[in-house]
């Protein structure tokens, strides 16, 4: 597991350049361009289970979902940030990407620290320190537990059409 550390206001153009928005939509098309203008090493070296730790307002800017789809596809286990931009936050729920809003954990992290996340308990361990993060509201958990918004909608539609 590797931690990728970034600063404040990491926007959607840094996460996935706008020029590809209308030509790359599938996970395989998205992956090579992830974080292209921010950190060219990311797409080359990211591994499943890696974690991103960042500052405030992560994911600000466009409503494009390629950053979220891409981060989920390469197996990012969680993005831990001081705060997230609203559309990015919502999009991550829709794709089932784990976001952890925990400013104290971000401030505590130093390069090389071991990071462990126990999502079901709502805790993140950094070096030996333990931080709690609040759970998602129950209405939102239903979407995440279904495997994302489309799966949730499919399930609902099936139920509706059976009744």
């Amino acid at each position, binding site marked *: 597991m590797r931690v990728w550390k970034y600063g404040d206001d990491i926007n959607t153009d840094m996460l996935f*350049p706008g020029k590809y928005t209308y030509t790359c*939509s599938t996970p395989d098309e998205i992956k090579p361009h992830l974080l292209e203008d921010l950190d060219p090493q990311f797409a080359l070296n990211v591994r499943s289970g890696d974690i991103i730790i960042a500052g405030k307002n992560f994911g600000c800017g466009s409503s494009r979902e390629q950053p979220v789809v891409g981060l989920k596809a390469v197996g990012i286990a969680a993005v831990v940030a001081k705060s997230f931009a609203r559309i990015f936050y919502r999009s991550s729920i829709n794709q089932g990407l784990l976001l952890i809003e925990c400013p104290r954990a971000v401030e505590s992290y130093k390069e090389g620290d071991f990071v462990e996340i126990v999502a079901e308990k709502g805790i993140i361990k950094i070096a030996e320190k333990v931080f709690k993060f609040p759970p998602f509201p129950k209405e939102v958990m239903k979407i995440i537990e279904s495997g994302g918004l489309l799966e949730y909608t499919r399930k609902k539609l099936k139920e509706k059409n059976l009744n």
Partner: protein
Amino acid sequence: MGMTFIQKIIATKSGKDTVEVGEIVTIKPDHLLTHDNTSAIIQKIDGELNRYGVVDPELPVIVLDHVIPAASEKNAAGHKKIREFVGRFGIKNFYDIGEGICHQIVYEKGLALPGTIVLGSDSHTCSYGAVGALATGIDRTEAAALLLSGQTWLKVAQTIKINLTGSLKPGVSAKDLILQIIGDIGSDGANYCVVEFHGDIESLSMDQRFTIANMGVEMGAKAAIFPVDGVTREFLMGCGIYKEMYREIIPDKDAEYLKELDYQMNKIEPVVALPHKVDNVKNVEEVEGVDIDQFLIGTCTNGRLSDLREAAKILKGKRVAGGSRLLILPASRSILMKAVKEGIINIFLEAGGTVLPPGCGPCLGAHQGVLAPGERCLSTANRNFKGRMGCKEAEIYLASPATVAASAIHGKIVDPRKEVRG
């Protein structure tokens, strides 16, 4: 305790007397806006569309604007797929290429009315707060789910109240005001919040309100709302929409706000947002003399007739400085036609400008004015992120139409008030 705009509209829409801040409520939006990304959206739900169809053919508003005319075979295939979808499911509100930028079309065609909820798979959907609609951006996946189910969840967000007093001075525009606010509170200053504008808002035209609401997302806002007043009603009347056709939602006087901010509009000066963040705002004097390669006037932020008039007034009889270029991007065909009729387009052409088809043009870096490494663009758009206009080694500065027009004459950033005074 009274209710804010978002509390009132969500309570009304969900048939409740009251809703609390923080509550999560299921709502049925009045419209769902999608654009060129419709092809990627419907691709996610091909099977379900075959089985269940679109929940309501009157729900979607589809506008082709982002890469128009198609810049590649892939874009063209996307547009073709969208046209087939529109025909197959009888989608009522479809606007093909050249009609204009999606947000301008929703506004012009009266598809966002006071008291309605509009969700769109574009972050600048927040623009329709200008007419008192609750409008906000969502992703493609949520748009796909909405096409099938017609409903989603919304959280009743906290609200920031901004009190505006006085009026803007000549040479200063709504763009300067909203850039100043974003510069002050930061690009996450209203994150997860709704922003309501109050006070002397009657001095702001609908076009100016649209510019301000359009940039709500650049301070992280979920929505940016101008409560309905005489200016709104008059604008809607001009679109053939009468008072009986919509519901005015006015926030209660005793509503509870997260915080209140006061701005005296006569104290606002022309400002510029420097690369690579929208909240990196400086007074124009501090950046005067910065050389610019490309000037862009237009986009969904500042491509309306009043913006073009303002720019034309400055550019009349002048030439764009040698070594630099000027792009004009009207927000809709109807605006372009009026600008042609008024002689405004001729002024731009005589000045050496290039007029682009109504659409998103170079704003998102896919085509029509992509920058080269080391180049600088001064633009009236809403975003100056690194790489936004297609090149990560280029710089984007944001300003008002007047500042961009005045600067184009000199090939570098100047205070527009100097040109206006002549």
